[in-house]
């Protein structure tokens, strides 16, 4: 039963993810595109669940569907020309080519690789395992990523800071 359920769920979620990802590219209305993007994120979260990665799945929903997409919405609404939607651009063909190239590469790698099946048990507590990995084994990359994000945040603040505030202080 378990296998069938997982397989059915996998195909449904994959279909959802791929269709909504296509929707992001195809639809003209930017807001609709973001809604599709959110749907695609949720689909990916579902895929994580089928992999028993519950922590990652919930984090995916929290960070991507709940926060990142909201920031995108914010950006669209606050941009004066935000309501113009997806326009035709001359970059259409190069983008298509690039996308096909990436898809081909990924597909080739996926098919060509000899995937090993792990024989160890699934994690009972994924959260604590991830936490230990991040703060123990991979603490340096983790810290570097945090510093990078901090720098990016400060850069953004400096960029959007009104000129008057700089003069005033």
């Amino acid at each position: 039963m378990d296998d069938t359920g997982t397989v059915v769920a996998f195909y449904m979620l994959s279909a959802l993810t791929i269709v909504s990802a296509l929707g992001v590219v195809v639809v003209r209305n930017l807001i609709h595109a973001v809604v599709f993007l959110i749907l695609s994120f949720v689909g990916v979260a579902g895929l994580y669940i089928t992999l028993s990665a519950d922590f990652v799945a919930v984090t995916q929903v929290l960070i991507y569907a709940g926060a990142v997409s909201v920031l995108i919405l914010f950006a669209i609404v606050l941009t004066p020309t935000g309501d113009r939607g997806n326009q035709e651009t001359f970059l259409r063909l190069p983008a298509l080519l690039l996308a096909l190239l990436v898809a081909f590469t990924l597909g080739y790698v996926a098919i060509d690789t000899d995937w090993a099946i792990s024989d160890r048990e699934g994690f009972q507590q994924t959260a604590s395992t991830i936490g230990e990995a991040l703060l123990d084994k991979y603490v340096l990359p983790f810290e570097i990523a945090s510093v990078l994000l901090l720098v990016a945040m400060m850069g953004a603040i400096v960029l959007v800071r009104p000129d008057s505030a700089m003069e005033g202080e």
Partner: protein
Amino acid sequence: MTVRAEPFVVNLGPQHPSTHGVFRLRLTLDGERIIDADMVMGYLHRSMEKLAEERTYTQNIPFTDRTDYLAAMTGNLAYVIAVEQLCGIEPPERAQWLRTIMCELQRIASHCMAVGIFANDCGAWQTPVMHMLRDREKVLDLFEMACGARLTLNYMRIGGVSRDVPPEFMPAARKLIKELPKKLNEYEDLLLENEIIVERSRGIGVLTPEQAMANSVSGPMLRASGVAWDIRKADPYAAYDKVDFDIAVGVHGDVYDRFVVRLAEMRQSVKILEQTLDLIPDGPVHAQLPTATVQPIDQPVAPLAIRPPVGEAYGRIESPRGELGFYLVSDGSPAPFRFHIRSPSYINLTPLKLMSVGGTVADAIVILGSVDIIVGEVDR
């Protein structure tokens, strides 16, 4: 580089929960900041000034109920005072005291609404206004006793008041003013120190005294800006020269002070009422009118048919909203040649743009609430 949102225009009104009627405010916004405010009025314009030119002086009294419909007594009084100035009529003593009583009751009722609705505009979900309506109802009960109506009272007459109050009026009024201070304490406890109201209204919509005077702002708004100007004190009419009361004045000129001044004025009104109920003399309530010039053929002398001499008069009183003035020009005919209402609601709106630009939408609502407009009086 400054990030700016696209300026966009929001219409507050004419149908909007907190424009106090059919008033429309066009706000140009940058995000939530107001960069321009434009008032659009006239949705309730009933052309009263033109209508009044077609009616006799007495027939015009009901119009004055329907300008400021939350303070009909003061509207009546301002008009009859202007006509009395025009004709040189002196109302009898008891009528003067009754006018004082009625005006102060009306002030309490009107300020109840003003403060309650202001709290509503701050977002207090109906609770303060419901409590205040309870006390306003009691005042309206008194009015019903005195003249049979609750809202459009039509109580004042040229040369006095329409009739004396019934004997049960005075005990009822005494009972009311005895319990009012307790209610006022309650309101002050609920609202005055309310952290959110203080935060929402302090430093918002500030008018300096110079700005307030230059913009012809009057009433609690002018007093909130620190100017001790109250026509009851400065130019006493009715019996205000015989009672003791203080002018309540704010010191910051912001929305909070307007609200504080209104609460303090309710207390002063109670103080005035306590004195008037003790001091009111007996006697007639209506002066004999100079009806000699009026001789309708085939009819007995109509006592209220007034034909004032040629001339003009500007009668003004302190209505709950400010200086309510009536400018009348008579050409000797039974109808006013020109009937102009100097309505405080309308003129207090003059500095609205000055006050609200730079604030947020939420501020604009609170500022509009603090002006305490009655659209019937704005549009007339």
